[in-house]
């Protein structure tokens, strides 16, 4: 008997209040959208195989990359870790029976689905070609595609994200088991706490920006329209006030996963727990003050550039702290190399590259040359795909036994991790060079001298696609044929591992009490010897 088998029937899923079931619903839906987004990425790469825009017309290409960006950001990466793994494990890690607001949690999922349906509607009814950034006045007065339905989708998906974040914050504050003090919480929870702050405070600004955009487009209210005296840069300010924090919404939960994975597979507590916890919060707080680094050459005041560039440098520091703390977690550990750990290693390398190239862009001088080129495309794919997506895969493999009760096949999944890593680098590293050479982003056709690097990139994307298809296949396979996992296959310390796999609907048979620090492997050993003693 567990949360999966307790009730049956479609309705028992669609009306569930169980955070674990909602997590599964999310997992299925974001995977669906990831593959749609991935298929669109495939189209992008195919088109860019040759310099001419020959596979599709330029405006089709524009629609393809816009839909790719919108889907990947709003329907995949923002909810990826939080809504699946976070939803599933935050209550368990805290020793709670559920999130504080189960019905709101279900509502979040329905909002997400509604947003997703609107995006699909947009796609089938002609698409939208503004880029995922909806730059005004292009989006308000110059394109005649479905900006409104996309805006509505983003608005609704935004509220889904707000409710998820709100739920997490309340849960973390109010639902901790006895003894679970703030500094005994797993770092995964800290990371989600920080990300939730960003969701709750940042997303509404995106919502109002989208509302004003819609009013501008339908009625022509003039707030963003230079002809009527409005300032189009104001839209950028409001948009990036959300969308910069959003990049941290997209990375912090992944960082939480990495903390868990690295600790578990080196059997050692995370080096400098407090520093890692606080750096999550620092990223969240400073993350609100750097948004205009996306507008350095757009005509904002040069003095503002100075301020925002400086703050960007400050926000980069906590990430560096984390990387080094993870590295030193390995020191004197006892390391094994299961799949989650391989992905975590991939994350460390790729996120470092992605983050440091972010510093190239945060440096106002170099940003002039690199902005709006493939350098940026490479930067954000390194942090988002090389960082967050790797972390997501690490987390999925790590917790798969807990979620399903079955092990994934280790050998083939290690292979998939390596394939992903190779494919990824081949896809996106050449884009740094392309960007430095000056190839602009969002180009359906490009000068022929850039072709060779683009061919590499396309080839890499093919490998990458295989690398992503493999997990889907073997994970689904493992549902039926995987080994029975047992409660704690990794010998990890989190409370979620101290209960059965898959867990009961109420998570624990009895309310747990936290009487030790997080990542206390000695406590775990003691428990085992105690059990042996009592059993014998």
């Amino acid at each position, binding site marked *: 008997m567990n949360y999966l088998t307790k009730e049956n029937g479609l309705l028992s899923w669609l009306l569930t209040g169980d955070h674990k079931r909602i997590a599964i619903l999310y997992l299925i839906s974001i995977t669906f959208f990831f593959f749609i987004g991935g298929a669109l990425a495939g189209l992008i790469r195919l088109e860019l195989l040759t310099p001419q825009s020959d596979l599709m017309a330029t405006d089709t290409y524009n629609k393809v990359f816009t839909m790719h960006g919108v889907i990947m950001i709003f329907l995949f990466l923002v909810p990826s870790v939080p809504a699946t793994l976070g939803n599933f494990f935050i209550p368990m890690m805290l020793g709670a029976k559920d999130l504080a607001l189960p019905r709101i949690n279900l509502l979040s999922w329905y909002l997400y689905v509604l947003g997703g349906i609107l995006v699909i509607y947009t796609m089938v009814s002609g698409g939208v070609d503004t880029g995922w950034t909806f730059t005004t006045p292009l989006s308000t007065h110059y394109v005649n595609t479905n900006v409104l339905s996309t805006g509505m989708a983003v608005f609704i998906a935004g509220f889904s994200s707000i409710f998820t974040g709100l739920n997490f914050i309340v849960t973390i504050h109010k639902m901790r088991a*006895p003894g679970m003090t703030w500094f005994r919480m797993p770092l995964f929870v800290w990371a989600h706490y920080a990300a939730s702050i960003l969701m709750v405070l940042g997303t509404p600004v995106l919502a109002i920006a989208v509302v004003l955009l819609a009013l501008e487009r339908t009625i022509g209210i003039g707030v963003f329209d230079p002809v009527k005296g409005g300032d189009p840069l104001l839209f950028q300010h409001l948009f990036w006030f959300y969308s910069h924090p959003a990049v941290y919404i997209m990375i912090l939960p992944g960082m939480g996963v990495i903390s868990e994975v690295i600790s578990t597979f080196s059997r050692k507590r995370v080096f400098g727990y407090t520093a890692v916890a606080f750096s999550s919060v620092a990223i969240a707080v400073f993350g609100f003050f750097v948004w205009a680094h996306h507008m350095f050459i757009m005509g904002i005041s040069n003095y503002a550039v100075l301020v925002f560039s400086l703050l960007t440098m400050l926000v980069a520091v906590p990430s560096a702290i984390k990387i080094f703390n993870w590295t030193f977690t390995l020191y004197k550990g006892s390391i094994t190399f299961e799949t989650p750990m391989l992905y975590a290693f991939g994350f460390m390398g790729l996120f470092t590259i992605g983050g440091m190239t972010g510093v190239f862009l945060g440096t106002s001088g170099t940003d002039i040359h690199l902005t709006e080129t493939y350098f940026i495309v490479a930067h954000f794919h390194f942090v988002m795909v090389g960082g967050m997506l790797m972390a997501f895969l690490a987390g999925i493999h790590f917790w798969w036994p807990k979620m399903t009760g079955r092990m994934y096949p280790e050998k083939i999944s290690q292979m998939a991790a390596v394939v992903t890593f190779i494919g990824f680098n081949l896809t996106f590293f050449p884009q740094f060079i392309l960007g430095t050479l000056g190839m602009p982003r969002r180009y359906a056709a490009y000068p022929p001298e850039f072709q060779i690097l683009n061919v590499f990139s396309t080839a890499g994307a093919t490998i990458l696609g295989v690398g992503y298809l493999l997990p889907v296949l073997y994970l689904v396979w493992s549902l039926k044929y995987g080994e029975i996992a047992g409660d704690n296959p990794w010998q990890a310390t989190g409370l979620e591992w101290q209960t059965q796999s898959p867990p009961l609907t109420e998570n624990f048979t009895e309310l747990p009490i936290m009487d030790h620090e997080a990542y206390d492997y000695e406590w775990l050993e003691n428990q085992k010897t105690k059990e042996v003693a009592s059993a014998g």
Partner: protein
Amino acid sequence: MSEETKHTHQIVGPKVYVIILFALLIGTALTVWASFIELGPWNPVIALAIATGKAVLVVLFFMQVKYSSKLTKLTVGAGIFTLLALISMTLSDYISRAWGRW
């Protein structure tokens, strides 16, 4: 459950509410009156100051923040902080645009 969740629920009585009601009504009268006299650059400052005074009363008493836990106060503080971040950092661009030729 930790310290901050201790529910220090205090019931605020009608007396307080009536006082606040009158304070708010007086504030409204004041702000309308102030807007009809010429105070130069001080007009908007006074209007905003009175509005903020009224808002503080509403938050502290009607919304009972004065009697609430630290956590609630912190939450309200966080909201104000982020709002000010949005406004001040955005305005920093607009104000300094005029300083140079950019």
